[in-house]
């Protein structure tokens, strides 16, 4: 039995609200199937499962807003039967329903420490020395003597993060565990956890994040417009990036004459709906250039972790402001035509804020392209945990020295922002050089 958990769709996501189940208990799931639709800061997202199995039981209800990493449903292997519902008693704490004393009680008992405190025991006993209780209360007593003193807030945070309380030393009144103690323990656990999960697939990683206070003060997604929530998501991700990632920047001017000529000839023979945009060549060229600098196709999570798949996050700006960065998956394996088809699919869906979970979570490098008539250059901010972003300015005519002669050529200024923890300028430089070479041979893209 495994739990299907609320996936993280980026460093900026804290929670999601279940809008609709797409599968029923008993349904057979294949990897990639859409199990549910979830409302996030980035719109309504279709959530896919990553392993097959039979949907056994829902663990949250439609309308629940739960933090990333919260079990949403349990899956069992194909060919098995379900367990009685009683045993899969939910350990879920939707954000809206904060007041659930019985549940708090239930978890508390499961967090017993094994060292009985004599002092406490005698205290409790003298308290309940009444003979009528003596016979039946042995079990109860053994539970109570292990009672952990903890503030309601600290307990709420610990439960949301499924933190074991037994090892935590309290620094509050009477040795009670308070918020600061829980946060400290979570930080320690996070480090451990990263080591354990190094080999796991990215989609299975549930980054631990401290529960921020604002969760309780701000009304869940309700009441916030999509523009505002997108703005907040961008703000969170970019602030994190600026705070944590030491960026380095490189720039290269690339001659686009050959690429544009090839594009023109190709498009001439095509109906308008099948024509390619320059962005397609950029995407494909970036995907191929990664061969020369694989360290740029990676994430930084407790060290550099290279990715095998090349999934290019393509920055789509929304008309109402803000951006979304859906992934064009396996861009190196796609033909230019297939990439154009991907763009035709993904851009309108991004603008309508209707993306799938994998499209938001699986990018391995980001590409931003300003299109025509925009600024000449763009210096990107890396989307964590990625380690690089490639920026394409507008294609403009500039004087170029060619075989000792001055000529006008269409050029594009390409920039690379790299995470200096992960790579150095030399790697980036090699990448931009390779990118140039690929764009000089558009027919091979």
């Amino acid at each position, binding site marked *: 039995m495994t739990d299907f958990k609320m996936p993280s769709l980026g460093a900026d996501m804290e929670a999601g609200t279940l809008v609709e189940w797409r599968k029923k208990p008993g349904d057979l799931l294949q990897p990639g199937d859409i199990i549910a639709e979830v409302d996030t800061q980035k719109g309504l997202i279709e959530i896919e499962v990553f392993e097959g199995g039979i949907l056994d039981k829902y663990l949250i209800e439609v309308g629940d807003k739960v933090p990333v990493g919260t079990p949403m449903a349990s899956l069992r292997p194909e060919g098995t039967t379900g367990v009685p519902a009683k045993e899969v008693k939910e350990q879920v704490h939707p954000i809206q329903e904060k007041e659930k004393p019985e549940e708090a009680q239930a978890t508390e008992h499961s967090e017993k420490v094994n060292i009985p405190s004599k002092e406490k025991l005698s205290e409790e006993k003298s308290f309940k020395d009444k003979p009528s209780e003596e016979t039946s209360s042995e079990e109860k007593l053994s539970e109570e003597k292990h009672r952990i003193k903890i*503030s309601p*807030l600290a307990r709420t945070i610990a439960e949301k993060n499924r933190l074991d309380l037994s090892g935590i030393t309290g620094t509050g009144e009477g040795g009670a565990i308070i918020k600061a103690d829980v946060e400290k323990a979570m930080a320690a656990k996070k480090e451990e956890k990263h080591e354990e999960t190094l080999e796991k697939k990215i989609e299975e990683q549930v980054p631990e994040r401290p529960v921020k*206070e604002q969760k309780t003060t701000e009304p869940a997604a309700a009441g916030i417009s999509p523009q505002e929530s997108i703005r907040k998501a961008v703000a969170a991700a970019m602030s994190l990036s600026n705070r944590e990632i030491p960026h380095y920047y490189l720039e290269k001017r690339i001659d686009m004459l050959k690429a544009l000529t090839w594009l023109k000839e190709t498009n001439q023979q095509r109906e308008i709906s099948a024509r390619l945009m320059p962005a397609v060549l950029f995407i494909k060229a970036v995907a191929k250039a990664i061969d020369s600098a694989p360290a740029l196709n990676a994430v930084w999570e407790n060290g550099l972790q290279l990715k095998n798949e090349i999934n290019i996050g393509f920055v789509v700006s929304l008309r109402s402001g803000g951006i979304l960065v859906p992934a064009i998956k396996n861009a190196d394996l796609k033909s230019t035509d297939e990439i154009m088809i991907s763009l035709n699919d993904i851009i309108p869906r991004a603008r309508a804020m209707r993306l799938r979970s994998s499209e938001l979570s699986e990018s391995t490098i980001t590409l931003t392209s300003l299109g025509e008539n925009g600024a000449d250059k763009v210096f990107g901010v890396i989307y964590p945990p990625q380690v690089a972003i490639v920026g394409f300015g507008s294609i403009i005519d500039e004087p170029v020295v060619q075989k000792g002669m001055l000529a006008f050529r269409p050029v594009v200024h390409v920039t690379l922002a790299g995470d200096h923890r992960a790579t150095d300028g030399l790697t980036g430089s090699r990448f931009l050089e390779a990118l140039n070479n690929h764009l000089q041979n558009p027919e091979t893209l």
Partner: protein
Amino acid sequence: MSEMIKITYREALKAGIREALTNDERVFLMGEDVGRYGGAFAVSKGLLQEFGEDRVMDVPLSESGFVGAGIGASLAGMKPIVEVMTVNFGLLPMDQIVNNAATMLHMSGGQINVPVVIRMSCGIGKQLAAQHSHSWEPLFAHIPGLVVLSVGTHEDARGMLHTALEHPDPVIIFEYTSMLNREAEIPADAGPMDISLAKVRREGKDISIITYGIGVHKSMEAAEKLAEQGIDAEVIDLRVLRPLDEKCFLESVVKTHRALLVEEAWGSINVSSEVSARIMEKAFFDLDAPVKRLGGVEVPIPYPLHLENASVPQVDDIVNAVIKILRP
């Protein structure tokens, strides 16, 4: 920002009464010694000469009688400001206040409002001894049908009366004897103040000090001292003791996760008890420490100054209580 003027609490109260008498002919002030003597605490000094005997009315020493008369006048369309010299005499008209003022709307099936305003001086004066130093805000705040205000700042002293007179139901205003000579700056054009909301007097993130009346400036001073020690306290002035603006203090507690409740009234079954209960009921899971109360010692207030001071929370007591909560 408009220009600021320095003003005593007494002058601010007087300016409010004067403005009310000027603006509305139905408004009149009645109470013991409010006219010729100028008020027991000189709040209404000179108003008799300015507005005449019909508008500033000395009454016999019979609280039950003249408060009842004020209630009657309000039923007849007048807007009386009834001054009960101090809350210490407030038990005498209690029957009029509870059984008539607070109940009439209900008994008349919603037909008859009682728009009377009753002002009382409250709290420890200076060495007035047990019978004249009461903090009885909780007694009145207990009664449904009343609006109970506590004037903890000079701006409220200047502006709460205006809004109270516009209220259709009986309003009790507690003013503080010990603050009368206290000076503070308020905007020169300070005017009517809201009488439905509590106010955050100082923003902070570490703890919410929830208080009213004299507790406000004491808590503000305490917060400044705490800031020197790196503790960022938020100070909430409840202002309206009935009906309580719980949204304000609950939001604060949800932010700071800790609360200290400060008032001069006797320590148990007081306004803080109610505030504490509501925090438990509605913000329990946001608490990171037990809610603590700092109230008056439960004794008749003593006459000697040092004992009088020791009988109600002082600035240092607030500072120490906060530190104990934050650094146990």
